[in-house]
């Protein structure tokens, strides 16, 4: 196994995307067989990725050909696993949703793989230009995935809004890169940090400006406070499995890149951001909570609450330079927790609404537990995990972040986050209460639990519970401590030479 083994996950996904693109031309293949092929490529990529999972390494594959633009380390393997699971989950959740009569064709799966390819490259790129192009590959395919059903004007509008704002933030990223290039004469991660060391005695004000512009792009992509307005509309306008994909994987990929960039290069610049980020976090939490309270539509509520979760993640991001490794690993762990809960919630809602074109509001769930008890149970588990109740993976994730923030001395942030959590219990529990405490069911034509998606969603629900209680109650069972250890290891792998 040479260097190629480090690139195999990328190769499988990239080749899979091209193969699917060619296959979608033939009319003889049904859409479910194309979905199976896509799934096959993703699983192959996942297996070849897991081979290096948890092994401390940092390799620049084919350094004499690629000149260190692509890196493979424990960190990238960790994040690639999340991204690949996200893509696999999207296909499984949407198994019944992606049907030809909804104008989904084989090209959709090709674009899904292209977008996963772009995100994986974003995690693995060690240079700003290739990172930008990887980001563009991922977002261009996402724009099209959102607007894929061109007969539905809501989809196209969501896609157009995202496109305009995404291109604008892309320009800001490039502008920031230009300023960093002006100050350091390089765009390679690692070299930038060396140029910015205080020993060089250089004026780094240009680099600070550039890095701040890149931070703004990052805040936009993860929908933090001043740049959050697109989120709800775009999530609302996209097909549900695509909303799930965006909410869970894209945020992970962007966080992964920013974390790498900050950890490797911007150690000295990050101090200038503290005040700015504190304000952003508090406003993100407050405004996200406000939006989530105001929504009546379930999809829009989940979109708004994703803004609040961004706020939690940013708290760990701020405390990273004081408590270092544990903050970084708590971000990684929280990303997994949010990923599982959001994927499950979005997936279940898309399964419930796949029979008709209903827009699900709170009211529709009145007495839902009497019709579909298992579905209500699963939905409750996901809501509990999103709210962060003990016994679920969401609790452990929040616990690590809040205790880290207090340890790092950001008591104000921790307090406001805990406050936001308390309020969030209201809008998550409202759904549970409506499901269980109303006698007369309103939703009657919900498909029964049948086929692949419910099995998979049930699997996610078990994972959410296992992440919360598994390590406490079941001794000698592989537990989440393993994930946290690997998260710490992957943070360490960033600084290997």
């Amino acid at each position, binding site marked *: 196994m040479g260097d190629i083994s480090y690139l195999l996950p990328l190769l499988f996904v990239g080749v899979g995307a091209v193969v699917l693109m060619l296959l979608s031309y033939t009319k003889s293949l049904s859409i479910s067989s194309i979905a199976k092929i896509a799934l096959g490529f993703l699983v192959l990529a996942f297996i070849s990725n897991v081979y290096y999972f948890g092994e401390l390494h940092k390799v620049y594959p084919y350094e004499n050909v690629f000149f260190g633009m692509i890196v493979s380390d424990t960190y990238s393997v960790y994040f690639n696993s999340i991204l690949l699971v996200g893509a696999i989950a999207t296909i499984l959740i949407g198994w019944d949703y992606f049907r030809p009569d909804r104008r989904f064709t084989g090209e959709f799966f090709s674009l899904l793989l292209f977008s996963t390819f772009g995100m994986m490259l974003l995690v693995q790129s060690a240079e700003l*230009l290739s990172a930008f192009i990887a980001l*563009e590959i991922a977002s261009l395919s996402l724009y099209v995935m959102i607007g894929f059903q061109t007969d539905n004007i*809501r989809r196209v509008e969501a896609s*157009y809004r995202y496109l*305009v704002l995404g291109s604008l933030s892309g*320009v800001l990223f490039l*502008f920031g890169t230009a300023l960093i*290039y002006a100050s350091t004469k*390089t765009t390679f991660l690692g070299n930038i940090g060396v140029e910015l060391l205080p020993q060089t005695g250089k004026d780094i004000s240009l680099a600070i400006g550039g890095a701040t512009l890149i931070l703004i792009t990052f805040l936009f992509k993860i929908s933090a406070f001043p740049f959050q307005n697109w989120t709800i509309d775009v999530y609302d306008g996209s097909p549900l499995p695509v909303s799930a994909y965006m909410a869970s994987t894209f945020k992970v990929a962007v966080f992964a890149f920013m974390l790498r960039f900050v950890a490797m290069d911007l150690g000295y610049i990050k101090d200038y951001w503290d005040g700015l980020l504190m304000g952003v976090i508090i406003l993100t939490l407050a405004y996200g909570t406000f939006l989530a309270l105001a929504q009546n539509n379930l999809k829009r509520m989940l979109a708004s609450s994703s803004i609040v979760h961004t706020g939690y993640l940013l708290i760990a991001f701020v405390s990273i330079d004081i408590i270092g490794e544990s903050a970084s690993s708590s971000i990684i762990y929280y990303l997994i927790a949010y990923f599982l809960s959001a994927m499950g919630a979005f997936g279940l809602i898309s399964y419930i609404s796949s029979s008709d074109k209903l827009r699900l509001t709170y009211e529709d769930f009145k007495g839902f537990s009497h019709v579909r008890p298992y579905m209500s149970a699963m939905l409750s588990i996901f809501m509990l995990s999103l709210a962060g109740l003990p016994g679920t993976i969401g609790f452990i994730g929040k616990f690590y972040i809040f205790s880290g923030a207090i340890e790092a001395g950001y008591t104000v942030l921790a307090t406001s986050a805990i406050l936001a959590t308390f309020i969030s219990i209201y809008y998550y529990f409202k759904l549970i209460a409506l499901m269980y405490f109303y006698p007369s069911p309103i939703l009657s034509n919900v498909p029964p639990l049948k086929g692949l998606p419910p099995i998979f969603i049930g699997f996610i629900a078990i994972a959410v519970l296992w992440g919360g209680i598994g390590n406490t109650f079941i001794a000698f069972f592989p537990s989440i401590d393993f994930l946290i250890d690997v998260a710490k290891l992957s943070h360490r792998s960033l600084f290997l030479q």
Partner: protein
Amino acid sequence: MSNSITAYMFLAMLLLSIGFLGVISRKNIFVIYMSIELMLNAVNLMFVALSRYNDLMSGQIIAMCIIAVATAEAGIFLSLIVVLYRRKKSLDSDIFNTLSQKEAL
């Protein structure tokens, strides 16, 4: 000397702000797209000027890749504009209000 890197950077930032003005103030979706293209041009100019000033070629390569990015975005913009125009028969971005903060349905 006036014809230095500062002048180029100033010019590029001026063009960038002109483009930004266009994106936020105009309603025609074609003009919004063109403003974004204009901003990309300004960034390109910045990279090439820096490349000349630092005697490094990498800035020019980056500028070339940015042209490729602009081309790809142009393709997607144009196809989305075609789709939107087919549905709405207008290029005014104000009529795209199906997704509003209020509940539409």
